[in-house]
């Protein structure tokens, strides 16, 4: 009889936990230029095959469980034609994830202009920013520190931010970025 008591208590505890802590849902927004690696990153987060990725027309969404959170990740197409629609997805965003192709030197300026515009938007005010400095496996990739310089991240005063070097195709650095995300979840008003 005695041995049953702790088990029963344990079960009660689990039930209590379930009731008082409904799974916390978060909205993550993945943005960046086309061919930055957003969809590959999304698939990597969902532990799916990343070798068959196609360009995103419109958007993809996946729900991922991580550190006790349910992350709803929105991956919006990055081509210029689609960028005007990015704003439609800003509302209620908990974390903004911006993906940069560090080997695409020619469009570094374009990507930093797009980011600057995002950071000025009212709907994204105060939303923590994670920048993935992607494609670090390529010989021509700039290091994360240099990309941070080019994007002017050190000038950001109104939100917490982080830059994380990564290789979305094999997952290097992706987990570290997500750990930062889970630690920096803003308290909801």
């Amino acid at each position: 009889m005695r041995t049953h008591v702790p088990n029963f208590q344990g079960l009660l505890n689990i039930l209590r936990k379930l009731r008082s802590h409904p799974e916390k849902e978060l909205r993550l927004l993945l943005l960046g230029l086309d061919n930055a690696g957003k969809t590959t990153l999304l698939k990597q987060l969902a532990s799916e095959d990343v070798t068959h990725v196609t360009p995103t027309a419109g958007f993809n969404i996946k729900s991922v469980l991580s550190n006790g959170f349910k992350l709803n990740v929105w991956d919006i197409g990055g081509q210029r034609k689609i960028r005007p629609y990015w704003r439609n997805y800003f509302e209620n965003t908990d974390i903004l994830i911006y993906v940069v192709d560090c080997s695409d030197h020619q469009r570094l300026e374009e990507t930093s202009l797009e980011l600057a515009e995002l950071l000025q938007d009212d709907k994204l005010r105060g939303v923590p920013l994670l920048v993935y400095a992607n494609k670090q496996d390529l010989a021509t990739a700039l290091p994360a520190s240099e990309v941070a310089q080019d994007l002017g991240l050190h000038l950001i005063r109104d939100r917490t931010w982080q830059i994380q070097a990564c290789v979305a195709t094999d997952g290097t650095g992706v987990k570290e970025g997500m750990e930062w995300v889970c630690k920096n979840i803003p308290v909801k008003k």
Partner: protein
Amino acid sequence: MIFLNLWSLFAWYLRPFIKWFFRKTTRLCELQRICYGDKAGAARTCNVEKSLMLSRTQSVKEVISFLDATVSEHRFIPENFRDILEPSISIIVRVKKINAKLHTPFITSFRRCLEQIWSYRSLMNDVENLRRTQFDSNNPLHEEKLLKLWSLLVPDTPLENRITKQWQYIGFQGDDPKTDFRGMGMLGLENLLFFATEYPEVSSHVLSHSCHPLYGYTFAIVGINITSMAYYLLKDGSAKTYMFNTKQYLPTINLFHRFYCYLFFEFDKMWIESKPENIMEFSIIFKKFENAVRNELADPASVFRINIEIDTI
């Protein structure tokens, strides 16, 4: 789940008895019953394949692995059909004790099934190879194909430059299409090129829809997503209905391209009919389209062809 497991266990032991019973009552083996009883095309060929794969006869298993080997050695092509299929068929005829003289219609129809089944397997290899070949702008052959795509789709306007914003007119994302093929590799480009070459009217009709001021979409990017859909339908076997119901062609890369063209044309029709608010509705409409296609392919009697009607949108 348990019920299903029980049933498959049951079926495994019961199958030989059922086959024996029918064999005694109809005096035909299962393969003959299929070839005489099922409608030519997907219904018949898929059942023949199922029957062969379930066979526990050693010689039948050997024939299957012999045919599979010819596929992996890239030898399963029409020129070799005689040399490959004659011995295979005669082994099966002998094992199944079929009177070849009496059953010539069976031999003809069974041979057709074998051609279709192993051409399909061969096609899966070819498609996979093309998909794995990345578009390489240092490869003159790849470059030539890309430029040809432009001249076929937009014959009146020459490209000003290899790297130019003009590419966006046919729905690439930026000023250089090379990064847009991604996971679909050369398969994506070959599909588009076939569409523009073999169906010039249809493809320009679809391209003009993609430039519609209200319901426009990105032609090439959507095309590459359709390549991905066709690829998965081929891989999981759903495309067999389409491939085996096409009377005049065996499953080859050209038939795969035709399948792609059919899908592109049908997607375009559904897109325009849905009157989408903007391109962001793509994911939803594309999913809806895939479900509709899968439903149609699930019926072995479905026949597919492009029906062009004159529309004024």
